[in-house]
């Protein structure tokens, strides 16, 4: 089985999350070969962002997990600006919620523990999860592939054995394997 690439940064948040994603993947029956996971990211360079964007245009899917939860405002602006440019994401100016949970509508309806949500999205387009009614995760097509952005880290929940986080994680992998499902927009969430 080909191993998806997990592209960590050299800091605890990213490395720990990467380990937990790896453990989850080892429990999956099949994993798409053109999947890239960039966990707990807060130091992405413009070059790396451009490389990832090119890969998505060519057909890869990138799970981009923000690690900006403990970063300062300057870092948050720099990284979100980069991600906006590379992946067409749109971020809110202020980026914190105090809710404990994140509510996913896609790829499966599930509530998971939030992780100090520090990156909020601006628009509702492609949004797949909310926290306190504010969009925190989204999915966006880019060329033949796309990016799944997680504004609240999922890796720590995977590491904690959180059933609902594992369900979301496994479904994300499943949905990327399935081109029809990966194109399906999330159903509107009832509030």
């Amino acid at each position, binding site marked *: 089985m080909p191993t998806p690439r997990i592209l960590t940064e050299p800091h605890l948040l990213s490395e720990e999350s990467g380990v937990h994603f790896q453990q989850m993947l080892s429990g999956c029956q099949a994993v798409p070969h053109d999947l890239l996971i960039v966990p707990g990211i807060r130091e992405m360079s413009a070059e790396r962002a451009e490389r990832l964007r090119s890969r998505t245009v060519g057909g890869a899917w990138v799970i981009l997990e923000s690690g900006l939860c403990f970063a300062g405002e300057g870092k948050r602006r720099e990284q979100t600006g980069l991600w906006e440019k590379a992946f067409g994401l749109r971020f809110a100016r202020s980026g914190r919620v105090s809710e404990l949970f994140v509510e996913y509508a896609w790829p499966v309806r599930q509530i998971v523990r939030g992780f100090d949500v520090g990156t909020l999205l601006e628009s509702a387009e492609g949004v797949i999860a909310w926290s306190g009614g504010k969009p925190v995760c989204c999915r966006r097509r880019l060329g033949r592939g796309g990016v799944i952005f997680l504004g609240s880290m999922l890796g720590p929940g995977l590491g904690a054995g959180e059933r*609902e986080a594992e369900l979301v994680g496994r479904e994300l992998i499943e949905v990327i394997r399935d081109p029809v499902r990966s194109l399906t927009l999330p159903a509107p969430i009832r509030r």
Partner: protein
Amino acid sequence: MKKAIGDNIFPPNTTFEQGLTLLKQGGYDGVELWLGERPWFQMKTSDGEVRELARKIRDVGLQVSDIANALDWEENICARDPAVREAAMRHIRRQLETAQMFSCDAILVVAGVVKEDLPYNEVYNRCRDVLQKLGEDAARARVKIGIENCCAEQKFLLSPREFSTFLDEVNSEWVGIHLDVGNIHETGFAEQWIEIHGPRITRMHMKDVHKHRGRCGEESVYTNIFLGDNNWRAIRQAMTKVNYDGWVIAEMEARYKYAADQQIFDTAAALDRLMAGRL
């Protein structure tokens, strides 16, 4: 979800029938029956009398949410005295029997009370061994035993992970947790217990708690739902998170000095808000 409250909240001098009528007027779906608490449901209550209680409950349009007991504090399965332990097993088996008579599939048990002269490890091992046996009875009866988390009073199974390990060791799908969200104030956060135990939750007890009030003296730490320090929004979200769709059972201390029945109606309204998630 369905809502219930215990028959131990029936105002003083109320008959069983009058209490049931109050619950029906309050919009409850069911009643939690406490074996050994009120005169109508004791160990000496015969099968025929139990069936008569069941008829009265049906006639008023209610169900039995679960069978609790008021006996575990005196007759616990962790007792050193074999006679006391046998008595505990007898009343738990009676709960299982009567649950079947009431067409109900869950009972509540307080397993283990650690004391100065009854140490933790001894209580742990004895409770596990007894519950493995009772789990077989529960499987035959097809009635789940919910072990209640009375952490502060029991001084036992103080963390959700330890509770989970304990249930792993009991190793019966018929033994789970009857989760009381008001009993976690000294040891953690109710919503985290819900998340950790998820599918093992047999029933849920609802009450509120003053986290910062001392336990000594006459003042209770418990209070009506929404008046204390529980994070009810988080509790409700955690219930949705783990797909809990079973009974929510108010376990209230009778606190109203006047119009005692009003507590039944006020509690029903609070449970409705909680179930609807309007918090």
